[in-house]
């Protein structure tokens, strides 16, 4: 596609529920990243995929968070037993490869846990 697409753009869920956030990267980009941006903060790194594998998931806050990229393109961030503290904008970015190339960001999914 023309850019990184994230769906839904907004998600309101009840505490304790399970949510999935989807990211469609730019076609041909092998690297994919998830970030979380809380109110008044800069984005914080969650996880990085190179192809289908999670090369670095050190930013995931706990085991309620999980992400997959089964075919090396679309990625899904999954959050179990959501808590109010999970409320944030979840950003996805992709790049042609790691390191020196620019990462292109999607517009994000605003998650609100009530």
């Amino acid at each position, binding site marked *: 596609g023309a850019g990184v697409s994230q769906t839904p753009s907004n998600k309101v869920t009840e505490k304790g529920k399970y949510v999935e956030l989807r990211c469609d990267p730019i076609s041909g980009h092998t690297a994919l990243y998830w970030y979380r941006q809380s109110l008044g903060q*800069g984005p914080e790194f969650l996880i990085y995929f190179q192809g289908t594998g999670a090369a670095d998931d050190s930013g995931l806050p706990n085991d309620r968070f999980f992400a997959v990229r089964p075919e090396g393109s679309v990625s899904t961030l999954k959050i179990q037993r959501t808590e109010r503290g999970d409320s944030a904008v979840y950003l996805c970015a992709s790049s042609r490869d790691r390191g020196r190339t620019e990462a292109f960001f999607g517009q994000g999914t605003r998650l609100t846990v009530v």
Partner: protein
Amino acid sequence: AQSVTQLDSQVPVFEEAPVELRCNYSSSVSVYLFWYVQYPNQGLQLLLKYLSGSTLVESINGFEAEFNKSQTSFHLRKPSVHISDTAEYFCAVSPSGTYKYIFGTGTRLKVLA
């Protein structure tokens, strides 16, 4: 570990005035440096980056930033701002050759008519 400090959370400035948005970082390894801009209701967009070479980098819309290794700074400047420059600006670093961006908390630039 790396960290980024953007001391100014908000910067109001009149149209056609110069502006400087400050960014300082700390790192024990060499880093790449970036400025991203986020316009209202849009995603983050790369404004400019420093990877190596000339320490002064420029964007296509008149912004520039200078990498100062001794002061560990990467301040963003524009000699004359426009209303359309109103946005939030994020400074970021990544350890050279890696993919992890560490972002600052952002500076909201508001250009006044």
